């Protein structure tokens, strides 16, 4: 199952994990040590992050390292996008209103054509 990226970053722990591994690759133990949470719980979060392609796991000797996928992250980290979406939502409503206004005007003044 391809997970929704937005769903993946909606969780504060997962956002924290992304922040950590975006700076440098880290092994699972090091990540887990930074959280007041069980190892399996952290593993589960990491699993979700790998499933949506935000991080990948690389085996290095006996250690498994988490590496951030910067290209995928850039897609999410486009910080203007939610702001743009908000305006898009408003302007779509404005489109509807303008259409309504146009119709009303035509009614009032008869068909202008």
């Amino acid at each position: 199952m391809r997970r929704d990226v937005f769903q993946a970053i909606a969780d504060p722990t997962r956002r924290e994990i992304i922040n950590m591994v975006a700076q440098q690759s880290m092994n699972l133990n090091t990540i887990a040590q930074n959280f007041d949470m069980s190892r399996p719980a952290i593993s589960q979060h990491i699993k979700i992050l790998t499933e949506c392609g935000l991080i990948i796991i690389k085996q290095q000797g006996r250690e498994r390292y988490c590496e951030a996928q910067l290209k995928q992250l850039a897609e999410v980290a486009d910080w203007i996008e939610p702001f743009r979406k908000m305006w898009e939502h408003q302007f779509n409503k404005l489109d509807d209103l303008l259409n309504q206004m146009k119709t009303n005007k035509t009614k009032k003044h008869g068909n202008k054509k």
Partner: protein
Amino acid sequence: MATKNELKVTAEAGKQDLFIVREFDAPRELVFEAFTDPDLLVKWLGPEGMKMTVDYYDARSGGSYRYIHTDEKGNSYAFRGVIHEIAAPERAIQTFEFEGMPEKGHVSMDTAMFEALPNDRTRLTIQSVFRSVADRDGIVKSGMERGLKEGFNKLDELLKA
């Protein structure tokens, strides 16, 4: 043929302004009216899921306004400012402040320009100038936080399904 009017938002790194550009399939008198008449403004302004109410809105040069967005949980967010200039149908300039800021005085100035295009179309350009880069980025990121909350809502819906 109805093609979708693309919305462009530009916030260059290190600058303290942002631009919002969008075209509309309506003559500019109408777009201007929808922008400056509070009875019309409440019909479209505000983020998804928020209801807008106008406290006061004196849409003339030298006037002032205050409106409130309320979400479904009853949280309300108030905004106010003064109207510097209403030059129908081509320009409206006003200040804008979110009352919920922890510190007062973080005011931006918004200039909305309405340009008439062929075939009764209009191009709207809004320039918002903030006091600092941090102020601008803060406003843009508040959208980010909302986006993340919407992410949560989406997750809730997924879990319900």
